[in-house]
């Protein structure tokens, strides 16, 4: 559906563009001499951990550490397709999902959750970025936003060095969230302080095998 027709605005703007460009010729092909990968000897796991800690995220190791990362939170929302073996520890895991048995939670219910536990699509070492694209074990965007603590399980093979290596792993048309540390702001005297509207705590659990 398109609402483009209002008083011919679309046609007029396109005509203005074409008129403005009538003698502009063609732009040369863009050079692409920048890096698309890090040096092969880079320890991307160590680099990722360094960046995450710099953002004041917490880093844990191994599937058993999920319980530790959840840090005693009582009510934990999970995407309905989150692997069973990740649901460990004393928390109550409340599924959210498109299946008949696991309907979507209301916003009020979501606001009552202490934490969210998900997987992710990829992670970029050089910038410490965790990427979600609504794929397996990630759920819809709202569940990783409303609870105050986000615990992400990250597998070794999901980690890449460079942004250019991560983009082909994402579904470009799916809703994506790229996360680099907990919610923060630089709006007061341009100093970064953590903790505004998004989850104020970000925990990453690395599964290295």
């Amino acid at each position: 559906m398109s609402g483009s027709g209002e008083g011919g605005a679309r046609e007029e703007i396109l005509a203005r563009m074409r008129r403005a460009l009538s003698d502009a010729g063609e732009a040369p092909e863009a050079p692409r001499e920048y890096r698309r990968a890090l040096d092969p000897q880079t320890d991307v796991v160590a680099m990722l951990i360094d960046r995450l800690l710099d953002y004041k995220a917490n880093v844990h190791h191994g599937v058993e550490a999920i319980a530790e990362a959840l840090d005693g939170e009582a009510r934990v929302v999970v995407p309905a397709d989150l692997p069973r073996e990740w649901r460990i520890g004393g928390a109550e895991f409340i599924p959210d999902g498109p299946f008949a048995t696991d309907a979507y939670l209301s916003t009020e219910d979501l606001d009552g959750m202490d934490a969210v536990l998900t997987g992710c699509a990829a992670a970029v070492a050089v910038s410490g970025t965790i990427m979600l694209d609504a794929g397996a074990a990630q759920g819809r965007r709202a569940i990783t936003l409303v609870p105050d603590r986000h615990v992400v399980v990250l597998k070794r093979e999901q980690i890449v060095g460079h942004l250019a290596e991560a983009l082909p792993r994402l579904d470009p048309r799916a809703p994506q969230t790229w996360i680099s540390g907990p919610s923060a702001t630089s709006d007061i005297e341009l100093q970064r302080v953590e903790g505004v509207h998004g989850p104020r705590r970000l925990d990453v659990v690395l599964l290295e095998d």
Partner: protein
Amino acid sequence: MSARKRGTAVPTSAAPASAVVPAASLIPADAPFPKAAKVALGMPQLRKNLAHATGTIRAKRAKVAGELDDWEHLRDSAAAIKADVQHRLPELAIEFERNAIAAGATVHWARDGAEANRIAVRIVREAGAEEVVKVKSMATQEIELNEYFEAQGLRAFETDLAELIVQLAEDRPSHILVPAIHYNRTEIRDIFDQRMGDAPAGLTDDPAALAEAARLHLRRRFLSAKVAVSGANFAVAETGSLVVVESEGNGRMCLTMPETLISIVGIEKLLPRFEDLEVFMQLLPRSSTGERMNPYTSVWTGSREGDGPRDVHVILLDNGRTRVLEDEVGRQALSCIRCSACLNVCPVYERTGGHAYGHVYPGPIGAILAPQLEPGRHDDLPYASSLCGACYEVCPVKIDIPEVLVHLRQQGPHAAGEQAAMGAAKAVMARPRLWRTALRAARLGSLPWRRKGFVRRLPWPGSRWTVSRDLPVPPKEDFRSWWKERQR
């Protein structure tokens, strides 16, 4: 009231409980730049805040840009991709529209700000809402959407921390990235205390406490909002996706929780391919907040069942951009990704702040964008620069701002007096004997100032020049006589 006296009315940290005085109310919005700048220069707290904030961000940017050994290659690619976008704008706009519609979005086109505002209000009414939450957006500042909404009986709530500060203070933004850059933490505490309504008792000026106050203030509004309004940092033609880059999570809240989403996107925001983000998402966060990556980036394509807004609208905005496109030299201003690096390094911006520019886009980029977007209204802005070139050096998309400044100075109007003076100079310089005589006269005439080295004040009409500049005294010996002597 003199400028200096007005300046002292600004709250300072020494007087923490003083009433909020919006900085923009002290600096005349419609005054020419030199006049407005003079007022701003007389506000010591404002200058202190700006020097502190721009100094902090300059150091951070330099550090993280320096980490990438291919920074110059990235700039070259970004500049070329943007030039390609400008050359193929009609084709890319149509491609974006087709893909966004296929993904379930409704795409509107707006010739100007008024048309975009009308479309937005209609969508809000159709959604049965009376208020919207807003993601920080320069496009909506540019078209004065908040003011239009208010006139139509609707309310628009800013949710970015700096925008919230500016809105509560009833001030105007003074920086592209951090609209409240002209306030320090104590002033922000006072604004929250006096204007927020639900500020926690005993609020301190600790930035973390201020961020917490904003979180509490906006939480209910986010969770209950029916409609959100956003801009976009990038619009990907190949997929019909929009991208919003942010820090706080207010963007994610607005883009995810409401049923209806309206995104107002300047046509120059297009990128050909999703893959192009690998260039721009390295350059933008490092150039703007000086971070390796901003905390949150959202990418969405139309609507998706069960995930985020169902009713997704995109308003493609012209509002003068196609006119900028006509100018072969000036059109590079459309490459701007609104990072603010040029503001932070500009010696003029650092001293005057953003309000003096009298336009939503201040600083070096504003000085080339404002006069092109609104011809005839900001002809003084291309002169608000020393042409030092620092802006060009930091620009992540390599806009040659000094080149465009000089180009616009040449195109802009020149006062009759200036034209007459230049005409006379041309006539004299074209006649060697006359020129020699003139030089001799200048040397003799400036003898009383020889020791000082410059003339502080000339009589009228020369005073028009010396009001903001010193006039250097001609040297004892000019080139011609030096050369003549040497040839002997």
